[in-house]
């Protein structure tokens, strides 16, 4: 049963990793704007190249 102690510590470490990921995501500004990405993702990449150079 004592092995549980190690397992729980490991599980907490993994959870901390997720918290770290969340903090990183916030720091990089992913939560600053929650509306524009929803619009942006519907846009296709422009396929046509410039007609005249």
């Amino acid at each position, binding site marked *: 049963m*004592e092995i*549980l*102690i190690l397992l*729980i510590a490991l599980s*907490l470490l993994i*959870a901390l990793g*997720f*918290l770290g990921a*969340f*903090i990183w995501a*916030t*720091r990089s*500004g992913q*939560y*600053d*704007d*929650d*509306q*524009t990405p929803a*619009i*942006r993702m*519907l*846009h*296709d990449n*422009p396929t*046509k*190249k*410039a*007609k*005249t150079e």
Partner: protein
Amino acid sequence: MEPVKSVALSDETLVTKQPDACYHCGELCGHDAVVADDRDFCCQGCSTVYQIITQNGLDDFYTLAEKPGFSLSNSSKLDYSWLDDPETQEQLITFRQGSTVRVLFELPQIHCASCVWLLEKLYRLNDGIQQSRVNFNRRELSVVFQEDQITFRELVELLDHIGYRPAIRLADLDKEHTPAVNRRLIYQLGVAGFAFGNIMLFSFPEYLGLNSIRESLFSRYFGYLNLALAMPVFLFSATDYFRSALAGIRVREINMDVPISLGILALFIRSTVEVLTYTGPGYFDSMAGLVFFLLIGKWFQQKSFDRLSFERDYKSYFPVSATLEDGTTRSLNQLIPGDRILVRNQELIPADGVLLEGAAMIDYSFVSGESAPVAIQPGSKVFAGGRQTGGRLLIHLSHTVKQSYLTQLWNEQSFHSDEKGRASKIARVMGGHFTWIVLSLALGTLAYWLAVDSGKAIHAFSSVLIIACPCALALAVPFIMGNGVRILGRNGAYVRGPQVIESLATTDVLVLDKTGTITYADQSDIQWEGDTLTEEEKWAVSAICRQSIHPLSQSLSAFLGVPPRSVQVTAFEEIPGQGLKASVNGKAYAIGRFGTPDTPPKRDVTAVEIHIHNGYVGSYIFQPRYRQGLQTALAAMPASMTMHLVSGDRPVDHEFLANLVGSPDQLHFQQLPADKLEFVKQQQLENHHVLMIGDGLNDAGALRQSNVGVVITESLNNFTPASDMILSAQSFILLPAIRKLSKRLVSHVYLAYGLALLYNVVGLSFAIRGDLSPIIAAVLMPLSSLSIVIYAWIVSHFESKRLGLIIHDHDQ
């Protein structure tokens, strides 16, 4: 039932049916129409933008949304040479490293998916632009560019050129840049959620009553883990509540955060002691859950107020640059007395000065509310805030911008009446009562157990503090009012905080401004009075009026229509303050206010007189057009509401207006901004709560003084004075429903308080007896919070539906 939507709908069908709508902006093509690529454009500007866009392979711009472009027909070219000044640039740039520069622009024109698409493809228009990102909610564009390839000024000119003129305001030049988004709350929320989840897991043996392991190694191990997880919640996530509670106590005011802080403090200390002394598992799960729920409430509330800025002053209205006599431009805060500046048609005078030359017809409606322009002779003083209508003026400045009359007026104390707090008043009052009840209950329990069984005393005392912690109570206002704020937003009414809904519910006096508020700002009814004009004469009048930029001439020519090209105007002359003289086909016309002894100029209405060959023929009478649904809206106001009309204009339409507000005593004309402010103050001295509706800067002082100041605006992108609520003009008719909704929501807040108290009474009955187990606390806290959230959602939607307001937003 849904007036706002039906307007939008009919708008759309109009555009698609119309064959000669502009391909770029969707507006009707008038006399300036341009045809290019077999497509119609309403003006040269739109056609240019189309060419830039298609030549760079960005045609998709036109396929992504119905009306993607922004009409350029009314915009004049701006001179941005003042942007070359390095000092001015520094104020506007957010970040610079080497030649890489990042700048944030506010672009009020952003309105659809196509805008986002085009603005994020700016790098295809110029190689110097590395990246551009749009924030749709805030109507902002962040651009990273190489300064050695495109200058700041060229970038602004490029944006202006494709129809997105950056809104650079005087205020931007003055203040430090503040970070746009508050990420702290998101971190706090994340940490609290993380801790809450994990602590719950580690508390499971406790929940399941696995007593066999209670005294074992695991129990201690979990205890320490929980303590470690709870630390960041206590020290980071919850700090704002402690700070707010302390700030409240310091000004001798007990707000809702005081009992919350007490509860968190009791939870943390009690649990820490239990864990460290191995006497129990503690209540860390309840603590983390409590903080997590509270922060969700806070976040929900904050999200509702993202979009519009309500803090505005004269700086938002003023241009950022002025043109000097030699044609160069200079940023406004660098102007000094002695400078000679040029002011063109429709430009604001930025600072007080003396008129040197030019025919000045200055519209001071911005300052005084009187909309008729005033003629000013060279040598006389002109004041900041006046708008020139007519030719070019040369002004010798006598004051700096900051020392001018208008700006001084703004700095006066009366215009900065006590900042209305953002915090909810109900929550503040309830928080006060609640804290005293909790404290006396806790102390009573302490005293009782000290006498009966001193071993249990501290235990029972802290239990009372824990269970009474008003989590559900604290959530009632954010969620009920937050939902209310969102629903109002969908109906075209944007409020600046939940306390506005509360104040709105208690208002009993309605003060209305006239021009632009109950009438349309940009439309008037024109009627002909006099002998009948022939078709030829009408065309002649229209053609003459087209030569002038005076607003009355402009609306008259628009009313009469475009004359045939054969109508030739000769000997045109504009006499400031009087009108126009010209001849067409050998007939001499005089249009304006040339009163002769037998036909004195009419002073009580706005009229344009027509004289042909020095003989008076008749007048075009300009009547303000009242808003559609005005009578219905005001009639739907409760009878207990007294209405007053306070206008800067001359008295007009006495009978109609008296009928509208109730009696002639309630009409107040020719009121200066200071008089309006005084009027509102007077009403408040008589113990009335004033709801004021206005539109311009001349109402600004009164709007601030009012309990609820509402600004009505045709376009939400327009600058409006500081206010509590911005009401879109189409939603004017919803005003009675909005007020009713606010009333009902306030009573629902009280009902929710009752519901929350029920839970507290149940919990307290355990706590006072001294046997509150962690599991009861852990169940009661989320249960009460959850029921409040659900209650808030149901009542706000139900009440809005009953009042015929739009609940769901399908537009975006």
